[in-house]
């Protein structure tokens, strides 16, 4: 971006996401799961650990509806136990 800035200035460089972009859910097919997930987050004050099963369900919903490429859950960080 700018040349000659001091080396202590840490710059931010964007990187592309691994799997690209989510296709848009125009029909709102998985909207219910979104609501549930957000509800869970609110209740747990943002603690992701308790709500992961819902994000797993959301991603599964997307995969079933063709809004996401099929992939194994462990590649997405969801191990079988916890």
């Amino acid at each position, binding site marked *: 971006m700018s040349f000659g800035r001091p080396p202590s200035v*840490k*710059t*931010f*460089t*964007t*990187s*592309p*996401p*691994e*799997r*690209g*972009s*989510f296709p*848009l*859910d*125009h029909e*709102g097919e998985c*909207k219910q799961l*979104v609501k549930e*997930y*957000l509800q869970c*987050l*609110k209740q747990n*004050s*943002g*603690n*992701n*650990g308790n709500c*992961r099963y819902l*994000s797993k369900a*959301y*991603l599964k919903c997307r995969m079933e509806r063709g809004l*996401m490429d099929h992939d194994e859950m*462990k*590649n*997405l*960080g*969801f*191990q079988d136990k916890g």
Partner: protein
Amino acid sequence: MNRFFDFMMRLFYIKSQFLECNNIININFNLINKKFGKYGKFGNQLFRKNRIIYNSNIGLNGGLNGGLNGLNGGLNGLNGLNGLNGFRFITSSTKNNNNPNFYMHHKKYSAKNKSLLMYTTAVLIFGVGFTYASVPLYRMFCQSTGFSGTPMTDNSKFSPDRLVPARNSRRIRVTFNADISRALQWSFVPQQLDVRVLPGETALAFYTAKNNSNQDIIGMATYNVTPSKVAPYFNKIQCFCFEEQKLEAGEEIDMPVFFFIDPEFFDDPLMKDVDTITLSYTFFKARYDNNGVLVPTPT
């Protein structure tokens, strides 16, 4: 010219001494005698010119062999020309003619010249090979370091063993920010205030975008992570950035971001004071121009 022929004759003489084949001198003497006449009468005689003694005591046996040997002798002489040291016996000085060291010098310099030739050839081949190899090498270098804006498509960060939550660490709070360019008539807000994640734990976050205008609009988003030093550890598996997102008039859509923080975040001492990370998305307006190219609309 005389010196040149002196030199050639001397070489043939030396060569014939090595190979014990004196046939060659026959042929050459014949030719030269006719042309230059300087070399005295030919025959099974020893004769002298310029204090060079040419030994010829063979008849015309094996004339063809002799011709070929002469060629070899000439090539040996060319080797000698390569190095500066080779010039030592090109001069018409005849001091070293009967000197046994003459032969040794020739051999030594010829060996040196050969090695010099080998080294030069090796350097040449290396240079040519390097220019050919530099294209894929540069490409590999760019991909691994992301030099000059090359997108890093290294997927080893996303291997399943890195996506395991680190149980013993504190949770990092990730807050969300959303911005829109003024030219874009959308409303774009994050759906959650923050998410607290462990390093290595994949998390989902949502933004909602609503098209408030009465036309279909294409938007494109970029993102930013603050503090900047965290950026190398913030990995997005899938999101909605950098690709066009088309919203129809009046449409409202949820846009998810699926990300995780690299487990090595906690091994880095510089990251010790980081408790909050802010992920900020900005949407810009884009449209297809007459050539079908997506161009941004400036604010």
